[in-house]
């Protein structure tokens, strides 16, 4: 499972990263967490606002900061999808 946090480094992007870390711990799912902060790489995901969260290549949300439990929920359904 691969989680990417897209953001150029402002405080909201950092907050999203922290929430994602919490979510990984909460759900107990084995996942890698990568910060994508180069604008060219961020644009590859075609999002209109940052910060954004990508799980296994799918953009889950952009422009807002979901709670750790919300992210954990996405992680669980991503695992079920296999």
């Amino acid at each position, binding site marked *: 499972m691969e989680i990417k946090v897209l953001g150029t480094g402002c405080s909201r992007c950092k907050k999203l990263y922290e929430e994602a870390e919490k979510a990984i711990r909460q759900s107990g799912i084995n996942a890698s967490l990568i910060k994508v902060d180069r604008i060219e790489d961020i644009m590859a995901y075609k999002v*209109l606002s940052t910060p954004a969260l990508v799980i296994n290549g799918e953009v889950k949300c*952009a*422009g807002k900061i979901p709670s750790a439990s919300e992210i954990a929920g996405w992680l669980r359904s991503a695992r079920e999808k296999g």
Partner: protein
Amino acid sequence: MLIAIGLIIWWIIYHNIGPFALWVTYGLFRVPVKSPLASSVEFFIFEAPKVMMLLALVVFGVGIVRSFFTPERTRRVLAGKRESVGNAMAALLGTVTPFCSCSAIPLFIGFVTTGVPLGVTFSFLISAPMVNEIALVLLFGLFGWRVAALYFGTGLMIAFASGWVIGRLRLEKYIEDWVYQTQMDAVNAPDEKLSWMDRIQFGWNAVKEIVGKVWIYVLLGIAVGAGIHGYVPENFMASIMGKGVWWSVPVAVILGIPMYSNAAGIIPVVQALLGKGAALGTVLAFMMSVIGLSLPETIILRKVLKPKLIFIFIGVVAVGIILVGYLFNMVL
């Protein structure tokens, strides 16, 4: 239902701030009546809760309005629109679409590569940071609804006109090349259906986030204003920022360009300048210049715009603000 109760409580508290301030100043602290200290203390105790409550209410309300708008929906509305209509809509949408300045680049690229004209995109990017509810609430709370309305109206006009002018100048070739190489034919934005509970949560989060960030600046601004209110005589000094000096407006605007502050942080400065005799119009123009144009922003934009376009952008908006500054001075 809960909201109705909350609003009623808010209303009751709000309307009792005046009497409360008087009681605290004279009854509790026993400050001598008609002293400068009394004037300052009463001002502060009256204004601080009043402005903070207004701020919380408006941020909450605007937060709920914002939950109806997403950058993706705005983009869809603006794509392919003709210039003038597009500029007007972009300027308006800029005030209500949630926008964080770090999203400026993804948003810019997303807009221009999916059929939103360059000028229209600029109208959006100008109004979004400048015409924000924090500035409006603070101006309303401290200077009255006329000032706030004027700021709002002229801010939109600047966004509209600047974007329109930039569009007319046909500056598309000054966008960095790599931007157009980004394949944005389908923008990735999960379109969510929000329930009313979600929207209220959105508004509440906005209050926590924004008020949590700016409350100290607001209190500082009111404190400075309180000091001036009590201790500085009315027409202290029409200094270089007074109405009499014609070049004060352009100077103020140009000074403001490299400076950056959020809307709340500039209020202490505004209060202090007014206390020194600066004309309200000049000070408002300065405020617009500081909030709307900034060095950090141009550095960010440098990633997607060639220098010539950045200079033209700053130049056009600066001229717009200067004109508005003169207009303010005539009207206020």
